[in-house]
């Protein structure tokens, strides 16, 4: 049985995102701390400071405290983690625990190849509309623009009975207004 799992680290344990019908990943700006930043707008041309689980049913914050970590794009080789200050990307900046963890396993698998991370709009070939998206795999020294099927982040190709990737993503609106369903994150791998 093949399984995918997306999880975030809440300071104590890895927590699965769970059903997409319940929560969405929300990207927000900054107010006074991570908790109060839920719902805070991101200025045009500025990237998100925080990330939260947004409950679809009532629009509330569904994070388990402490909240998800926001890794903000600042420049190609720098980031700002939970608004703590600008730092250079490095082998362990951000750390595993500050990224989203994506795992995949299937019976008989031993190798992966052609592993990519995408952001797309209505179709997997489309770039998101109204937002610009970037992503990195932990250990990358630069962010990579992701937009549709043509502009993608090349991931590592883990070996073994399961594969694990640690990914951070950041987003900025290109115009004023809510961007509730403009970008979808997607991962793909070939395995054998």
């Amino acid at each position, binding site marked *: 049985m*093949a399984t995918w799992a997306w999880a975030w680290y809440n300071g104590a344990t890895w927590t699965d995102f769970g059903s997409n019908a319940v929560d969405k990943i929300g990207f927000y700006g900054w107010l006074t701390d991570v908790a109060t930043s839920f719902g805070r707008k991101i200025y045009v041309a500025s990237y998100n400071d925080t990330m939260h689980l947004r409950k679809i049913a009532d629009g509330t914050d569904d994070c388990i405290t402490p909240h998800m970590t926001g890794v903000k794009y600042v420049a190609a080789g720098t980031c700002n983690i939970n608004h703590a200050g600008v730092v250079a990307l490095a082998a362990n900046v951000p750390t595993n625990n500050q990224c989203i963890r994506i795992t995949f396993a299937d019976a008989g*698998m031993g190798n992966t190849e052609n592993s990519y991370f995408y952001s797309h709009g209505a179709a997997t070939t489309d770039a998101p509309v109204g937002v610009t998206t970037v992503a990195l795999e932990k250990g990358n020294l630069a962010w990579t623009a992701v937009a549709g099927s043509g502009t993608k982040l090349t991931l590592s190709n883990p070996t073994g009975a399961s594969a694990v990737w640690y990914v951070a993503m950041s987003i900025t609106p290109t115009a004023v207004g809510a961007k509730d369903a403009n970008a*979808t994150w997607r991962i793909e*791998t070939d395995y054998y």
Partner: protein
Amino acid sequence: MAERERCNWLASLSDGRTFVEKELIDAGKSAYSTVKEIVDKGEATLTGFRLQRAGITHTAPSASPRAKFPSEVPFTIDHRRRAAQSERGEEWYANYIARANGLKIMLWVCEATGDTWMQIVEDKK
């Protein structure tokens, strides 16, 4: 989204043996490596490698002499699965790859719908 029915591959060898991916996995063996090892050791040659889903066996079309598979041109086979996931659902594909005459010929099967298509690219290895 259509329910996924996983593809299995069936490998036929020149000595009459047939291997089914699921049976090897259920026996706790690394499926593709088991067959590849037999071929690499020269114990037997592959005479067929097909994908099977929902009782339908998929083989490459033979309209093109180069795409004919199994064929009279020397070929080697390879096999991959592709998995993708986003909040809009999962995608599952299986393929086999036949390498011959400098071409890589891939037969893809969508494990959710059963749709198949061919992809032929230059084999850069």
